[in-house]
Structure formats: C-alpha cells, structure tokens
C-alpha cells in the first residue's frame, strides 16, 4: 500500500551526464558536507556532538559508527520504502535503525572493547540520534537507493568532520594533546601516536567539560557564518 504522499515523491530524472558526476549527485555531496551540514547548520545530532567530542579519537569513532548506521539505514529504507505503510513509517524506520545500531554495538564490543567502554551509552543512543531519522524520513523514504546511500554517507561525513574538528579543539585546549586514547581504537601499538602539543600543560578542564562543547560549537557556527559573509 502506498500513500498519496509517497506516490507524489519527486520522480528521479535520468542523470544527465554533463561532467564527472550529475548535478544532483554533486548537490547531495555539497549539501551533506557544507550547505546543510548536520553539525553546524541543521544542528541535528547534537547529543553525541556535545557529549563525546572531548577528544579526536572518541569523536572520530562515534562519527564513523553513526555514518555507517546512517548509510545502511538510508539504503535499507530506500529499498523497502514502497512496502512500508505511510501511517506507521516512523516506527518501522526506528526498528530498522535500532537493528543496525545493535549490529554496530555488538561489533564494537567484539573488536574494540576498550573503545566500546569509553563510548558507553552513546553507541546505543545512535538509534535516537535525530540526524539518522531525519535523513531517512526526509530523503531515503522518497528517493532512489543509490542517492539515499550517498546522501546519508555525506551527511555522516559532514557530522563526523564537525565532531573531529570540535574534538581536536577541545582536546588541544583541555589536555594539550591530540589523538590521546588512540590505543583504545587501534590496539597497544598505537600507544606512541599521541601527539603532545605542550610539555607540562596544566589542562584547561572547561574545554573538556560540556560547556566547552557548547562554546566550541558556537565558535564553529560563527566561523562558518563569517566565511559565508565574506563570500557574499
């Protein structure tokens, strides 16, 4: 059964092969990474952004986990979008997302247990991360599978990029290092990969605490607006 809304979804025009990629593909990529960046434009998915971005390793790991879930979730939903009754689409989407998150959670528990413990509750919380549901509802439930996967991947990378920049800012200011805890993700070989920025650094706890995330995010949004003002 397909609802009127679903049948009214925009029909995909055949990709006019102008340059390397179609105009639509390019738009999806630019939207995800910059114009509609989830982290600093849509301000969706702030829960992990604020909670886990206290260093680069945490930020990158959770960002990649979220990207993986988003890509697979959007692809799956786009595949089955014509079979899901319109009225119960949200529970159906959440079920699909939750199943994927469980897979990611178990995989991380099995292969990177140390990181799994550090990220803790924020891995299962990917299920409730609004950017995942937002892309599924706003994009994947209306568009082709390939475009949905591309869109979710680009949105995920856009979010991950913001997370990593914020994580780098907070880690550098708060602890005076970069990539601390990298051994949690890559095993004990990576122990020496931590980059100390300043010897005998006292640490600036505020940057690592939640207020640091809010202030850092505010500064990033301001920086983006500033760049746009200069372009205009």
């Amino acid at each position, binding site marked *: 059964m397909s609802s009127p809304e679903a049948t009214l979804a925009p029909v995909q025009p055949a990709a006019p092969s102008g340059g390397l990629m179609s105009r639509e593909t390019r738009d999806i990529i630019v939207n995800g990474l910059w114009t509609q960046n989830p982290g600093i434009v849509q301000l969706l998915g702030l829960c992990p952004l604020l909670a886990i971005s206290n260093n680069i390793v945490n930020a990158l790991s959770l960002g990649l986990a979220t990207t993986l879930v988003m890509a697979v979730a959007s692809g799956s939903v786009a595949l089955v979008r014509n079979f899901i009754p319109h009225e119960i689409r949200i529970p159906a989407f959440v079920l699909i997302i939750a199943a994927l998150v469980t897979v990611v959670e178990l995989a991380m528990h099995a292969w990177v247990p140390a990181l799994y413990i550090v990220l803790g509750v924020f891995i299962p919380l990917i299920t409730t991360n609004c950017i995942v549901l937002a892309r599924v509802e706003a994009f994947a439930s209306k568009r082709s599978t390939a475009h949905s996967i591309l869109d979710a991947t680009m949105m995920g990378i856009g979010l991950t990029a913001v997370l990593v920049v914020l994580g780098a800012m907070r880690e550098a200011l708060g602890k005076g290092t970069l990539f601390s805890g990298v051994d949690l993700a890559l095993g004990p070989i990576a122990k020496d990969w931590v980059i100390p920025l300043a010897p005998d650094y006292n640490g*600036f*706890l*505020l940057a690592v*605490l939640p207020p640091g995330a809010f202030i850092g995010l*505010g500064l990033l949004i301001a920086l983006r607006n500033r760049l746009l003002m200069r372009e205009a």
Partner: protein
Amino acid sequence: MIGSPYTLASNSTATIMFKVLLALLPGIAAHVWLFGPGIVVSLILCSAFAIGFETLLLLARRLPLQPFLSDNSALVSAWLLALSLPTLAPWWLYAIGIGIAIVIAKQLYGGLGQNLFNPAMVGYAALIVSFPVYMTQWPAPIVLADHAIGLWDAFDIVFSGQGSISADAYTSATLLDTWKTQVRLNTAPEVLLAQPIFGWIGARGHEIVALMYLAGGLLLFWGKRITWHIPLAFLAGVALTAGVLQLIDPTQHASPLLHLFSGGVMLGAFFIATDPVTAATTPRGKLIYAAMAGFLTVIIRGFGSFPDGVAFAILLMNMCVPFIDDYTQPRVFGHPRKRSKAGQP
C-alpha cells in the same frame, strides 16, 4: 531626556561605574594592609587584560573604541574578578579569567547591557571548574605568613610562577575550604574555630576586608547608586538559610555570622548581585532574585563540591531574571491589577 527643573546630574554609565570602583577602594586598602601588596598586582594585571580584550573585540566588531572603552565597565568587571581570585596566582590565570569574562560573557553576547550573565562571575566560575588547585591557594594574612611579600616579590611570583619564595611559605587553605574538608572528617566545629586561620567572626584578615566591602557598599547605597533591596535580601537569604541549617545540624554547618563574613558574600551582596544589567529590575523581583541567590549560596557551600557558592548562585539567578521580571511587573498607576501572562507583551 531631562525635564525641568533641568538638574545637571551626570548619570552616565562612566560615572556610575567610576563610583563603583571608588566604593571598592576601602576593601582594597584593607586587603593591602592585611595581606600585602599582592592584590595591587592582580588589579593592575586584570585591568590591563580587560582593556586589551575589550579593545580587540571592539575592533573585531567594528565599533568605535572611545565611547565603549571610556565607560569603565570593563574595569569594574576586571576589579570584581581580581578581588574574587586569589592573589599571587600565575599571570595566565588572570588572563584566562578576564578573557572568558570580557570576550565570551560580555562582548559575544553583544556588549554591556546585552549580557545575560555577570561577566566577572562567568570568569570566576570557568576558572574554579578548570583550575581548582590554583583557585584554592590563598595567601595567608601577613600576621600568619612566614614571609612578608613585597610588591616586587609579588610581581616575581605572578610572572615566574614560583619566585624565590616557596608557595607554602605564604599560602594557606581558605576558611570555607578547611571547614568543608574538616567537618566531613567529623572534626568538631569548636576545634576548627580555634585554628589560627579563624579570626573573630570569619577568616582572619578576610573578615576585615569583608567589613570594608560592607562599608563601600553602604557608600554606594547612600550615593543612590544601588537600592537596599538586593544587598539586604541577599544577606538575609544567606543568614536565614545558614541559621536554619545550623539549627538542624550544628556539627556540620557554620554559623550565619561566619557565612556572612567569609568568601564572597559581602562583595557579592553589594557589588556583584547588584549589577544593573544582570540583576532583576522590579522591586519585588530584586527581593526574590537576591534572596534566592543568598539561599543558593549557603546550599552550595553546605552540600556542593566547591568551597564557595556565591558565583554559581548569582549565575543561576541571572538565568531566572527575565522570568522573575516578567512575573513581578508593578501595577501601573490608574490601571487595575492584571494577572501576569508570561511571554506576552
């Protein structure tokens, strides 16, 4: 603006702020007398950093320098923060505190008049969560210190971190800090009060400085720069809450008098809670705002993890100010009393 009979009172921001600075002088003088000239160094440093950051941000915001720099508001924030911080701390502590106060809490919110939170207290709160070790090492009063610290020693210590004299020779834990850690180890209050850092009613030395802040605050009141509502309600909130707590459990909670004359209560009551930008503006609102701030101060001191609660209490109440003001609008003469509707013009 001025109607007849054309008085020539100059009530500009600059003169009001300047009078606040003047009213702080008795407290500063007492501080120099009892603790040595360390406070002069932190006042100079904080003022310089404040003017520096203010200039930078005004340039970045493309605003004219002269009218904003000469309104003395940055200096007031700088002095209030300097008086709340331990003297003889490393110079970067003052720089970070003033930077957060002026850049984030004041200019990024839109400058004087637009700031939701008291800048000096935001700076203080950021420092105490980030650098608790530096924030709890206060120089002991001269009578208790092993070494007298001269002005040049003070500069040396602030800029080189250590100086020629070991920090243990001139610092001691603060009274509120000692109280908090000791009563949790079940030390009897009588034993505590017999320690040398306790004076007649509060911390030795600091109690006199607090008394001088009280005197400076009364000058502000007589000069009609502040009304009685906020200081009185704040002090009453502190005293009543402390009194009730002491009645309930005298082995854990200090007396109201000790609460009033230690930490930042006197400075907070007359100079910080009365900030015209961030405080409530209606008469009833001022009473609610300040009494709640006093109540929270004692609650944070008694049950929180930080020794003093004045900064957090005032910041928390700053958040409630728009709400308090909205519900306490006075009745306009000639109009019936209306039920307040929050959020409606």
